[in-house]
């Protein structure tokens, strides 16, 4: 009998810490010691905090949305098999959405205790690297990864074996293997969950990669915004060293390998390989021209191979199960599974892993449970600031690298933000341009200045000051920024604008020519009115209105003078009675 508490960042944010304390207290007061384990995120973030009760015969009961006041019931269930009254057991629909997934990269996340190497070892942990070292040559390893068809999970989808082969063939030494955990896409948290929930599989994947290319040193570059991931990695590395899995003469095969962690300091562009290397060297993270590729001249000018967290997490499974087992999943050109972070206006937000080739509709409706509050689906954003918005008419697009690229979006690292009818697509484009404009490193003029000019135009349009010709100007700028940028940040920055222009051009036109925001989202294009039935005449809005546009006697219904209103929206935020309507 044991109790497992989901302790990923999301679980902790939802209150898993308080639940843990409550369980410990309750067990103490009952004087009934029970084994408490922690686990990473199992993906169903919308149900956090999650507590699993595992009986001695291995039967697992999952309690969801647990509050400290449910603890007594949960322990009654665990110890006395008493059915709970208020505590909620995971429903069949939620279970069904888990069952539709195929978990390879996430195989251990939410299942094993990430702070105990014994758990990982008991589940085939470090068997793959042992197999590689004892039975395979580096070339065999590369061949198996080639058979698997694994492509880089960081976004670009470059075949992993090809990068390994290129680094393997370099004569210069030492070589380095780097794990890119600089997950900068706003709206994506796959890498965080893997690092928090299953750090050992990333370490093992790096060791296998190191063996394949001939590197003895690995570096994990993690965002400093992920303190828990860094902590769990540090624990994992320490435990691996103590067990002799990292260090000298691993498994008595003469292979030496060790890994250290570099905390990034916050720069989206550092997801780009050459920028990441500059950052590793302690400099500003600015990309440089390729070639030479990192495989030829990388960290300190030496051959360096960089893969994403999820890519590495797949590697041990591939080497143990065989490349063909991985290739059996997915589509012809996109093999295996992919992890996605479902968020936005979706019912069941969280982390999912699916075989490639499922359609967007299956993911959003069958697994994600559809849109919140029964609103209408409008678009799904894939690929973050480098990607685009895919409209409802393309919901039957299969999820593979080529099909997603054909829509104008990209597979990206796996962020999937679902939007409903209340999301303004022009504002969405403005949001991403605001991001890329801030994150542009400033090296290329087109990216540095072009994104700024595009942002200004989009701000103008969302503020109701759009001009005839703005759309054409945007299109022209998009092309120039694409052409004139050295790295993928600038090269893909126009994608959010291009896709929204392609699929939602009418929304741009409504903003510019009709001074209207169809989604009722852009403040400056709304009309604020007071709902008479809800206003209690408290006067809070009148007091805060910067242009004295609201008047009314105390305790009587107030009104807004439209000719004075500057549409700042302050009244709506200060009203605690929801009496201000913006349409």
């Amino acid at each position, binding site marked *: 009998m044991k109790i497992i508490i989901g302790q990923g960042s999301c679980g902790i944010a939802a209150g898993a810490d308080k639940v843990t304390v409550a369980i410990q207290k309750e067990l103490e007061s009952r004087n009934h010691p029970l084994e408490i384990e922690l686990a990473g995120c199992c993906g169903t973030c919308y149900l956090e905090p999650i507590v699993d009760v595992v009986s001695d015969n291995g039967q697992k009961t999952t309690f969801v949305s647990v509050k400290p006041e449910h603890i007594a019931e949960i322990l009654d269930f665990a110890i006395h098999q008493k059915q709970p009254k208020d505590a909620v057991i995971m429903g069949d629909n939620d279970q069904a959405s888990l069952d539709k997934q195929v978990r390879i990269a996430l195989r251990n996340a939410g299942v094993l205790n990430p702070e105990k190497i014994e758990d990982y070892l008991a589940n085939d942990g470090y068997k793959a690297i042992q197999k590689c070292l004892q039975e395979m040559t580096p070339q065999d390893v590369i061949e198996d990864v080639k058979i698997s068809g694994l492509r880089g999970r960081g976004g670009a989808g470059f075949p992993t074996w090809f990068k390994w082969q290129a680094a393997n063939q370099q004569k210069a030494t030492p070589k380095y293997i780097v794990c890119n955990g600089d997950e900068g896409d706003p709206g994506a948290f796959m890498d965080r969950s893997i690092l928090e929930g299953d750090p050992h599989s990333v370490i093992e994947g790096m060791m296998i990669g190191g063996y394949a290319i001939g590197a003895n040193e690995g570096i994990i570059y993690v965002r400093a915004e992920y303190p828990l991931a860094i902590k769990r990695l540090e624990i994992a590395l320490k435990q691996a060293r103590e067990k002799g899995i990292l260090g000298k003469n691993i498994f008595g095969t003469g292979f030496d390998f060790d890994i250290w962690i570099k905390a990034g300091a916050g720069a989206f562009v550092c997801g780009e390989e050459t920028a990441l290397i500059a950052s590793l060297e302690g400099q500003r993270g600015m990309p440089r021209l390729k070639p030479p590729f990192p495989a030829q001249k990388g960290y300190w000018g030496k051959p360096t191979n960089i893969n994403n967290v999820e890519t590495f997490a797949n590697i041990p499974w591939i080497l143990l199960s065989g490349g063909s087992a991985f290739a059996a999943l997915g589509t012809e050109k996109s093999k295996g599974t992919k992890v996605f972070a479902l*968020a936005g206006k979706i019912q069941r937000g969280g982390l999912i892993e699916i075989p490639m080739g499922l359609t967007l509709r299956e993911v959003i409706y069958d697994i994600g449970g559809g849109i919140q509050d029964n609103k209408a689906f409008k678009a799904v954003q894939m690929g973050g600031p480098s990607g685009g918005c895919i409209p409802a008419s393309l919901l039957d697009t299969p999820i593979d690298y080529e099909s997603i690229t054909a829509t104008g979006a990209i597979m990206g690292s796996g962020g999937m933000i679902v939007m409903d009818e209340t999301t303004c697509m022009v504002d969405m484009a403005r949001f991403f341009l605001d991001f890329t404009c801030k994150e542009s*490193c400033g090296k290329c003029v087109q990216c540095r200045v072009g994104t700024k000019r595009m942002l200004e135009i989009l701000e103008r349009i969302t503020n109701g000051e759009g001009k005839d010709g703005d759309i054409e100007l945007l299109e022209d700028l998009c092309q120039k920024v694409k052409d004139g940028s050295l790295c993928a940040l600038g090269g893909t920055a126009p994608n959010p604008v291009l896709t929204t222009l392609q699929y939602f051009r009418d929304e741009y036109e409504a903003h510019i020519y009709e001074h209207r925001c169809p989604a009722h989202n852009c403040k400056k294009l709304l009309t604020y009115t007071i709902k008479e039935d809800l206003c209690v005449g408290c006067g809070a809005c009148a007091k805060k209105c910067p242009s004295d546009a609201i008047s009314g006697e105390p305790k009587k219904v107030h009104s807004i003078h439209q000719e004075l209103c500057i549409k700042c929206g302050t009244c709506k935020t200060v009203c605690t009675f929801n009496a201000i309507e913006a349409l």
Partner: protein
Amino acid sequence: MSELNQFNNMCKKSSDELTHDTSQLDEVLKVYKNKPGSMITILQKAQDIYGYLPKDIICYISQETLIKTPIIYGVATFYTQFRLQPVGEYLILLCKGTACHVNGANEIEQTICDELNIQNGETTEDGIFTLNNVACLGCCSLSPVMMINGETYAKMTPKKARSILRDLRKKSKLNAGKEDQV
């Protein structure tokens, strides 16, 4: 450029007047100063010690590592993690990631600005709160979220944000003994 020059001049003037205690930083420098490529790590550790990167400390790091101050300043201003100004007792990191944006992060920002009378990047006059918008905290399915001194607050509403800030203001050390001003 003028900002840079100003910074350099400032360094020359104040290099003798080291106002901060460097005993903890010296331990860090002992480990990292001769290790190439360690500037980001040194600055991160310095910020952990002082809460931000004071100018005299940047000058001191420059003297110790023999790396010129404009280069250090260039690194410090490139990455969003580094701060050149002290922050309040409570540092509010408001997530402005895509999921939070779609779920109303702007309204939360407006509420915080209204409640504290500051804008993004500013600190309240009493030194209790600093507001920093950040790109993504990675808790997208609990959006909108904010993090205050390491604790994450999920599924924010304007009302919730206000009450959290008022509670923290009451708890503030800087407010101890004073009447509740809200």
